[in-house]
């Protein structure tokens, strides 16, 4: 992450080459031609910046890879994540199983590949849910103000006050006690629900403070003076200007949720068999870490890389959208 204005404010070094360039000739020579003639918007500017950052391309590359793995796992492995033969139990990495085999003889590589789907699907869905719910409530609270704001903020505080891991365990345990043997989608849905329920207040606060700040802005006052209706103001003026922090937050949130799902699975309350996810694998590998460290290693590596990519992308997007770094 490079900061274009590095260097200390507090010293002014002596002139570069005193005495040079005493001419009074036109000043034009050698300037780069103006890059573009018509102005881009903030998003256009951001994209322009984003395109030139290696951080963006690296993270985007990884993310694309992970999305492909999640969507088309069969492209990356011909093996099966759930069929295994006990004869291969805990075998190390080799030519047939690149990442080795777990206690049940299942191919770790296949499981890691198929596990991407659950992890990423849960993370992306939960992010969408959180941002939509939180964003909506935040806009309403910020825009209406008064008792509506007070009420919605208190409700958000109630959910905000629940410690995350604790709350997730309680929710998941209450709604899906272990061993209930429900189907894959129900389990994933419950995890998504838990994540959204516990995190939407944060999205709400971000949106609300953006809206509060934007509401005071002159361009909103001007729009109102010209007779714009509330809906128009919200959709055409407020939301586009409040998108930036929410966008950054969502990107990072996907990464955080991948980690959160893994943590919950590790604790035994998140996804469970027969669902395959990186968290489930890490959880299962706990006891065998000394004899089969690769069982822990590979899912962890994928997990960390996935989270890292999203966090990096979020950073790149934040820098690109930050008007102060212009």
């Amino acid at each position, binding site marked *: 992450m490079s900061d274009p204005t590095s260097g200390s404010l507090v010293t002014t070094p002596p002139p570069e080459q005193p005495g040079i360039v005493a001419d009074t000739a036109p000043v034009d020579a050698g300037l780069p031609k103006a890059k573009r003639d018509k102005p881009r918007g903030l998003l256009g500017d951001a994209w322009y910046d984003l395109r030139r950052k290696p951080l963006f391309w690296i993270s985007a590359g990884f993310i694309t890879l992970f999305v492909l793995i999640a969507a088309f796992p069969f492209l990356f492995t011909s093996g099966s994540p759930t069929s295994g033969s006990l004869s291969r139990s805990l075998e190390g990495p080799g030519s047939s199983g690149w990442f080795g085999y777990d206690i049940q003889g299942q191919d770790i590589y296949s499981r890691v590949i198929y596990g991407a789907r659950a992890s990423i699907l849960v993370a992306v869905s939960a992010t969408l849910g959180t941002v939509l719910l939180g964003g909506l409530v935040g806009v309403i609270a910020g825009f209406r103000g008064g008792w509506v704001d007070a009420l919605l903020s208190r409700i958000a505080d109630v959910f905000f006050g629940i410690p995350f891991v604790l709350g997730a365990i309680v929710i998941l345990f209450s709604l899906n006690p272990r061993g209930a043997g429900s189907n894959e989608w129900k389990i994933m849905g419950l995890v998504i629900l838990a994540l959204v329920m516990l995190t939407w207040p944060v999205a709400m606060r971000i949106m609300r403070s953006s809206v509060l700040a934007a509401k005071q802005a002159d361009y909103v006052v001007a729009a109102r003076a010209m007779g714009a209706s509330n809906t128009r103001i919200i959709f055409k003026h407020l939301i586009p200007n409040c998108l930036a922090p929410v966008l950054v937050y969502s990107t990072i949130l996907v990464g955080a949720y991948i980690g959160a799902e893994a943590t919950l699975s590790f604790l035994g309350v998140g996804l469970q068999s027969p669902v395959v996810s990186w968290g489930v694998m890490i959880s299962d590998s706990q006891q065998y870490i000394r004899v089969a460290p690769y069982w822990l290693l590979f899912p962890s590596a994928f997990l*960390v890389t996935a989270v890292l990519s999203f*966090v990096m992308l979020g950073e790149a997007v934040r820098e690109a959208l930050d008007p102060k770094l212009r």
Partner: protein
Amino acid sequence: MGRYVLRRLLQLIPVFFGTTLLIYWLVWSVPGDPFAGKCGERACPDSYIQFMTEKYHLDDPLPVQYIYYMGHLLTGDFGQTFGGRDISEIISQAYPNTLKLALVGLTIEAIIGLTAGILTGLRRNGFLDNLVLVSTLFLLAIPTFVSGFLLQFILGVQIGIINPTVSADAPFSELIVPGFVLASVSMAYVARLTRTSIAENSRSDYVRTAVAKGLPQRRVVGVHLLRNSLIPVITFLGTDLGALMGGAIVTEGIFSINGIGREVYRAIVTKESATVVGIVVVLVMVYLLMNLLVDLLYAALDPRIRYE
């Protein structure tokens, strides 16, 4: 200032009741027989069931249950586990360990995070800056349980310089590595937040004025710049303490620390609903109070807030 405090206290009360009610409902509305598995292998005797049902008003509608429960709570009676242990005893034994862990974590987070943040905020784009940026990125991305696991394995089992698990009375020295694990994500965040805050404030007008006054750079940075830049960081540290105290379940589990996180996890899994609610109530209360303290701290640090 007084009005500000009063207003915040008033806001706190409905939130406290709202959160505890929510948790109560979630915990007690678990489908199935609340007495399953409580009395060992056999089903519980009827007399016992009747006694417990009366005691916790399990036959009444939920809001009524809740009111009775809170009533007891506010007089200090947390009730008992299904096995007869005093819940307040469980809490008072386990909580100090969690507190110790949280404090160790906060100290580590503050020291390392602030140092890294200040150094890189002042001198960006150097080797140190890139090092810090990359390492914080990694720390942010590694979930607690992974880092906990790894450190426990590498330091405790492979190299063996620490105990893989923490002993029963949880001395501070043994809590250093668990504290580090607990605080690792926050530490990265503190470093970045400090760095950004310092970088932004370096360009502000009042710093320019301080330089124009001819003050030595040490003072411009150490007094004027830091005093302003650290406000968001200090308030974050305050809220994080509240979060650390409530979120150590994973760390306590991995390092076998007898803290409140372990107790609550155990209680959830064995359906000791009263224990769960009791512990959560305490945690929520602590969290809300911490938030209030942080708000006061913020007002103390930034005079512009005081006179709203």
